[in-house]
């Protein structure tokens, strides 16, 4: 086993293990911190997939933005004096059975399907090509996404405002 694949398996284990921590932890803050490590692990997987720009974007937006937003949500919807911040689960048996069935189907499909594979050289830079595609091939979705972000953020500010 080479050093690279050793590091890959550590990152993969970190991702999957902390994703399990998000779902199974009894403490809401522990879930949020596990989500932090899971998102960092996914960013590491992107690095192994030669997607450095996506990895940095993942860290900036997910870890720096969405996770902070989630922790704000936890803080605002629980009394700070309530130290335990516990949260419970319901119907773990039925949900676990359904999810195990879904996972079994997915993995059987993944291992069985004849995926289209094509080898490629490792690109020296990815940002230039992504920028070209965003500005040429996907300009309309890009602009629509900017309007959607504006509308969503204004809507969120309006929704969470105190009603007079």
């Amino acid at each position, binding site marked *: 086993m080479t050093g690279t694949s050793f590091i890959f398996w550590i990152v993969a284990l970190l991702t999957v293990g902390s994703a399990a921590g998000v779902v199974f932890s009894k403490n809401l803050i522990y879930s949020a911190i596990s989500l932090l490590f899971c998102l960092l692990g996914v960013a590491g997987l992107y690095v192994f997939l030669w997607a450095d720009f996506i990895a940095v974007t993942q860290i900036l937006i997910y870890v720096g933005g969405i996770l902070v937003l989630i922790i704000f949500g936890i803080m605002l919807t629980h009394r700070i004096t309530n130290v335990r911040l516990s949260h419970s689960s319901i119907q773990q048996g039925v949900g676990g059975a359904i999810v195990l069935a879904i996972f079994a189907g997915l993995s059987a499909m993944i291992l069985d399907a004849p995926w*289209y594979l094509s080898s490629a050289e490792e690109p020296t830079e990815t940002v230039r090509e992504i920028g070209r595609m965003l500005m040429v091939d996907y300009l309309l979705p890009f602009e629509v996404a900017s309007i959607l972000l504006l509308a969503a953020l204004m809507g969120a500010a309006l929704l969470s405002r105190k009603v007079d």
Partner: protein
Amino acid sequence: MVGLNTYLIIGAILFSLGMFGVITRRNGVAVLMGVELILNAANVNFVAFARFGGMDFTGHVFSLFVIILAAAEAAVALAIILNIFNSLGTVNIDEANQLKQ
């Protein structure tokens, strides 16, 4: 060398765990965390297919859009959860069963 199937299986595990969280958690914020896990699973699949399908950058652009939509979704969902907390005093989604009070 780690192949495509490894990434797809990791994505499937992330998706299943996220789905489990969405199904079983009572707290609304924890359900939101499950949705984030599902979106990350989809992103891992996009980037893995881009890498092993001849380094096509369309997958990268798609995962960028998914990240953008996740940001918008998290903001709106947390605003809704705050409203539920203000009007019902709880964020447990199985207790939030009133449309109007």
